[in-house]
């Protein structure tokens, strides 16, 4: 068993477990079990444990149906909330650069929601591209699809925003208020991201093992 293919298996398994929302502590344990078993026996990891996707699905069964679908990794509430907060920050900060007053309308709120919904498509396609381990051609098509829909998403959201009337005006605020509110949204985004990352940190459980992500 070569170190290179063992490392490749480890990385693909880590990714597959992440995609199935297996908790970080459990991922560290699973990776250590696979590594020590392969090091001790010299067995091919695919022969011993199955493909990374198959083994990740089996491990995820421990956590019930919640962890069963890779799609849920993208569609989970914390990911959507991070994206929504970042979009709100941008919606306030960008006009505040050029105008002295920032106006929020029903149309702009609908635009944010539309962009959030449309961004799910490239996210799902990017995830399919990243988890497609067997066919390079399929990976390429999913990747191109993700890129195309990512580029088209803002235009689509803009079109939807225009379709909704710019009225009524929900709130008008001076530039400094818009910047302050955008900063609050941005800080909330960073805090939520940091919390998610810290809570899912992968730690090697073996004596003397080091934390990794």
């Amino acid at each position, binding site marked *: 068993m070569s170190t290179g293919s063992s490392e490749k298996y480890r990385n693909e398994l880590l990714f597959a477990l992440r995609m199935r929302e297996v908790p970080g502590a459990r991922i560290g*344990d699973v990776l250590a079990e696979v590594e*020590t078993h392969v090091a*001790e026996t010299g067995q091919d990891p695919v022969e011993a*444990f199955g493909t990374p996707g198959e*083994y990740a699905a089996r491990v995820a069964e421990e956590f019930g149906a919640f962890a069963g679908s890779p799609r849920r990794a993208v569609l989970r509430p914390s990911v959507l909330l991070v994206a929504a907060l970042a979009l709100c920050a941008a919606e306030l900060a960008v006009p505040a650069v050029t105008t002295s007053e920032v106006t929020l309308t029903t149309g702009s709120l609908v635009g944010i929601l539309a962009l959030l919904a449309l961004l799910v498509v490239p996210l799902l396609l990017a995830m399919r591209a990243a988890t497609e381990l067997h066919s390079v051609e399929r990976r390429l098509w999913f990747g191109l699809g993700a890129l195309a829909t990512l580029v088209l998403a803002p235009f689509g959201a803009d079109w939807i925003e225009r379709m909704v009337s710019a009225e009524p005006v929900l709130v008008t605020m001076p530039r400094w208020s818009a910047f302050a509110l955008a900063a609050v949204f941005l800080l909330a985004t960073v805090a939520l991201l940091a919390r998610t990352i810290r809570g899912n940190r992968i730690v090697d459980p073996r004596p*003397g093992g080091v934390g990794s992500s």
Partner: protein
Amino acid sequence: MERQTQWLRGVLDLAVLALLAESGEDYGYTLVRRLDEAGLPGMKPGTLYPLLNRLDSEGLVRSEWRAGAGGPGRKFFLLTEQGRAVLAEQGPLWTEFAKNATAVLERGMSS
């Protein structure tokens, strides 16, 4: 072999508890080997490790990582009192089931 693997899955948790009852503690690789030596071959580590971890989360076994002598660390599994109680309760039920199944097969084969 495929059929034997299916049979083994039905009794694997009890077989693992029984092996741990014999030795007190063991780790994944040697449990696979001991199952094989006991005439229960074909168990893949990819099936055994998730089972061991399920038994761990149910409190039937306890696990701990220990440093290996010059090699990688090993995850040892130890039978708990709860695991011993489950083995004592479920073990006789399985042996009764296996005895009945054997009797049915033997009657069919000799008729």
